């Protein structure tokens, strides 16, 4: 393995990035809608899928954190200090929220005394017993966490597009699968 930092995100990092992105957007949309459903078997199914995909995000986020810490990743793109610092802050916050959202949902589910079944395959233990106070706070974290995450994702995506369309740099391309390697003159 080369000792210099790669110029692109490796394939597995790309896969995790886009898979989690897709799941987060889907979970957010379904999550906003599902609470207004009237009680029905369909509602149970939708909630069960929301929980299953949410736990999937938690598992992938754990894998992603390990991968991020264990493998080499591209250096930051050059840019003004405020951009580099805000990018770091947003990336850090996104990592935090990838754990906060599923864990607060899990805690809310546990304190509500519901089981947690992953795609009808196996059950996960409760994080907490039935507890109205914990239920209330976990839901608050999950709901405010959602809006926080929505804001973070928006800023993150807007910054990526800004880099791509206005700065014409590699920020977005190096996370896109199937893109040709940047010209060799493009030093990090």
């Amino acid at each position, binding site marked *: 393995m080369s000792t210099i930092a790669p110029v692109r995100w490796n394939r597995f990092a790309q896969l995790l990035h886009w898979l989690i992105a897709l799941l987060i957007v889907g979970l957010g949309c379904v999550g906003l809608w599902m609470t207004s459903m009237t*009680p029905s*078997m369909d509602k149970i199914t939708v909630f069960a899928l929301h929980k299953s995909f949410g736990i999937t995000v938690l598992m992938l986020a754990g894998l992603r954190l390990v991968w991020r810490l264990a493998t080499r990743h591209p250096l930051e793109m050059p840019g003004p200090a405020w951009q580099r610092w805000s990018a770091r802050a947003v990336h850090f916050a996104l990592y935090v929220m990838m754990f906060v959202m599923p864990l607060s949902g899990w805690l809310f589910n546990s304190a*509500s005394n*519901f089981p947690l079944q992953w795609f009808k395959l*196996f*059950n996960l233990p409760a994080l907490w017993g039935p507890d109205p106070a914990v239920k209330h706070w976990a839901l608050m974290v999950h709901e405010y966490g959602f809006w926080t995450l929505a804001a973070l994702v928006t800023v993150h995506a807007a910054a990526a597009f800004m880099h791509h369309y206005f700065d014409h740099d590699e920020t977005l391309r190096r996370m896109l699968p199937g893109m040709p390697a940047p010209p060799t003159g493009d030093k990090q």
Partner: protein
Amino acid sequence: MNLRYLVFALALSSPIAASAGNWHADTKYSTLAFSGIYQGEAFDGRFKTFDATIAFDPAQPATSRFDVKIPLASADTANSDRDDALRGADFFDTAHTPVATFTATHVRSLGGNHYAADGTLSLRGVSKPVVFTFTWTGGATPALVGDAVVNRLDFKVGGGQWADTSVIGNAVKVHTALKLVAAPGGAPATSVRK
């Protein structure tokens, strides 16, 4: 006479053999619990209120009578969403059938202090046989500990779209532990008709 005792007395609608002790459950020290399966996991609930009047003599089990009334709205599974759903029209339908009853007039000895009551459970307007097995520990305040299995779909509890037993199991285990006290008026009981 305490009004509650009057209700118990009125609940006895058939003659009881003079030799059978007549008891009712001291609900403060008695439980009526149930356990179902939801999404692959057991959940526990209990009925916070119920009345159980029991005429039973271990020496003559055939002369027994069980009269149990269960206000279904008192079901508590430590989950407000589920409890609301249980009370709803698709499950217990407490608006139309607020009380379930279990009545048994035939008790068999299973050896030792084990017995089986072949009774009838009336729930949601459906009456079907249910076998209740129990142990009897005699004394001034006898203890009756027993179990039954109720298949919810037999009583149309959660039929229609809710009938998917891979999500909501069909068999519901019922467990009860009763501390019995002598019914007022004292055992042996006499016939009281409504």
